[in-house]
């Protein structure tokens, strides 16, 4: 475990420095803050510039993802932070109770999940003290560096700490004082932080989750349409190697289309296989590989498995939904209608964070199934203003 953080006493002093930095930040017009944040994102995106190259180098070792998958994640995340988009988002904010400084806890997330919680507070004139994951702090540290290089006033309003979650002393100091704490992590991580925040502090919890897809029968009118949906679905599965909280783990296909669920599973398998070269999957840990082996075995036993070297699709008809181990393993199931879809997703409860949909003109009733409902093919590329946990991205500090 890496520790890159001052001791607890210094962390307490950091809070005071960051409050001062926020005052300086707020003195800047929002248009200037938006422009500077946009430049920081651009620099990190620029693969020809030193900051962009260094970021990619670090992400390669910290994430276990392959270069094209990292590139996709960077482009579809940092690429959203244009000046105009930031200003448009800022205009939507609820400025009734702006927050001066906040703490962000990033524990075990996809690398790109750090972009919003670090850059959006800066846009709003709120300083950030972030505890990065001790296993992957690459993006937070590069974001902080980029802000500093562009304008020292922005850099001073963003500090990154890296220490283990078991470090109680530093965690205590981190949570001492802020009025707002935003936590990204597993249910256990959220509970642990929640138990330690001081009374009067607002906690924004962004727990882990997963996604699912629904292909309505009207979207499967013919083979070309089905193939096109399968291609888009494969992109959602392959992005981040299916390790994100929006990553789909099952495709639920409504009966009655010209292409049935079994045939759709084959198309999805083909589409995933086609991505194997240009969008290669990263290496698996022994634990992940073992989980994959068991999942695939069960899929073959209870359904039909289409297996390639680094992806697999199972068709399991009416079998209960099984959560895949990720890493591009996904099951395809049948359902009769939206009620059937609801029943399928029921065991996952509140953990369903995203529902990708193809077809179905009337989608109102789907919004109850997941906080983020979108077209298949866009599950992993939510817009800047997406309410990913059911709340506006500036909620709490805007």
């Amino acid at each position, binding site marked *: 475990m890496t520790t890159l953080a001052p001791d607890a006493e210094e962390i307490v002093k950091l809070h005071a420095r960051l409050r001062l930095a926020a005052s300086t930040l707020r003195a800047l017009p929002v248009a200037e803050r938006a422009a500077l944040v946009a430049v920081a994102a651009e620099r990190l995106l620029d693969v020809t510039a030193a900051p962009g190259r260094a970021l990619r180098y670090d992400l390669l070792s910290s994430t276990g993802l392959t270069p094209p998958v990292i590139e996709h994640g960077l482009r579809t995340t940092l690429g959203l932070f244009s000046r105009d988009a930031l200003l448009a988002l800022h205009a939507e904010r609820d400025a009734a109770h702006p927050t001066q400084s906040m703490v962000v806890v990033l524990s075990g997330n996809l690398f790109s999940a750090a972009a919003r919680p670090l850059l959006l507070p800066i846009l709003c004139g709120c300083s950030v003290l972030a505890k990065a994951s001790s296993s*992957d702090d690459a993006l937070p540290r590069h974001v902080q560096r980029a802000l500093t290089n562009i304008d020292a006033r922005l850099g001073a309003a963003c500090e990154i700490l890296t220490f283990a979650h078991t470090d109680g002393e530093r965690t205590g100091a981190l949570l001492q004082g802020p009025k707002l704490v935003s936590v990204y992590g597993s249910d256990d991580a959220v509970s642990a932080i929640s138990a330690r925040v001081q009374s009067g502090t607002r906690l924004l919890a962004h727990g882990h989750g997963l996604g699912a897809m629904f292909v309505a029968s009207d979207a499967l009118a013919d083979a070309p349409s089905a193939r096109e949906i399968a291609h888009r679905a494969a992109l959602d599965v392959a992005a981040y190697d299916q390790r*994100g909280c929006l990553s789909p783990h099952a495709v639920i296909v409504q009966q009655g289309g010209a292409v049935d669920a079994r045939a759709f599973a084959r198309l999805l398998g083909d589409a995933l296989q086609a991505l194997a070269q240009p969008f290669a999957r990263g290496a698996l840990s022994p634990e992940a590989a073992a989980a994959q082996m068991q999942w695939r075995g069960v899929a073959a036993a209870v359904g039909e498995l289409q297996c390639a070297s680094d992806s697999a699709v199972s068709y399991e008809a009416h079998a209960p939904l099984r959560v895949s181990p990720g890493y591009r393993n996904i099951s395809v199931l049948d359902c009769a209608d939206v009620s059937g879809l609801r029943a399928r997703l029921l065991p996952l409860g509140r953990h369903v964070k995203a529902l990708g949909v193809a077809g179905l003109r009337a989608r109102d009733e789907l919004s109850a199934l997941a906080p983020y409902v979108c077209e298949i093919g866009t599950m992993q590329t939510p817009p800047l203003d997406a309410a990913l946990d059911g709340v506006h991205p500036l909620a709490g500090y805007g």
Partner: protein
Amino acid sequence: MTRDGLMMRVSALIGRLADGSRDDAARDALLQDLLRWQCSNVDVYGRVVRGLCAPDEADALRFPAVPTDVFRVARVAAHAAALDVRTFHTSGTGKGARGSHHLRDLSLYDQGAQAAAKRMLFPDVARMPLVILAPSANEVPDSSLSYMLDRFATWFGAGEALHVLRDSQLDTALLERTLRTAVNTRQPIALLGTSFAFVHAEDSFGSLRFMLPSGSRIMQTGGFKGRSRSVEPGEMLQMLSARYGVQEAFIVQEYGMTELCSQLYETTLRDAALGHALGPRRLWAPGWVRVSVVNPDSLMPVPDGETGLLRIDDLCNVDTACAIQTSDRGLRVDDGVLVQGRATGATPRGCSLATDAALGG
């Protein structure tokens, strides 16, 4: 190729290799035939083979093995349920359904278990008193361990075997009396049981120590999944040796699984009992079992010395699936394997939810 023909060939091979000799070519030839037969006759196995690879009929040894989780969700058997003579279930200490192994015939189980135990646990004695820290098969008829230990009592026990674990309670007073008697009468005994039962005894005995007579031995098996306390293997060895006065070489692990009919044993007891030089502590597989260490992703064999997952091909599993893919990590050491724990509990590195957490919530 018929089922009866395969049964006879396996039985003959066990008979020939019961003395510990090896004939890997004969084993592999028989495995090829059995794997092909099971691919056609065990529906689930055929599905697994077709799902996980494009089978090369010419080399059935490369057919995929059945992952252990499959036994939780499907009946893996060539025969109808009406022909089951025994069904063993996994312990159910993990989440989800218990795995089931449906046996049509126990003759190969018995023949293999007796031969392996004779060689590895009782190479120096015909019979001795057995003290069993596990429930009896009458109490838990679906436990393969209890079945095996009850058979040991018949084959190797002197007098009636003593079960000190009854109704899920370890009778520590009875165990203490038995141990004192063994010490006082200088009668070597065999303590056989689950690792967790030994830990439970350890926690109960406090400062009590025993110096069991020379020739006494301990066989422990199983892990600590779902238990409130776990002990590392090295620590366990020292703990048992200190508690019971049994030299470490005479304390061995048995590696068995509900899904297998055969067992693997650590080598030290046999080597020490027969005065052989002790090699590194490792698990020995009998000649009718093929243990491979495979890459967890490709499931292809790894070079010697590399860690991977254990795949076990057990010829005694004629009516079910002889090729079992475990999630146990291990590596080859000399002529055996070293198990390094289980590769489970993976949480995807990202913010996707672990499977258990998702369905638990």
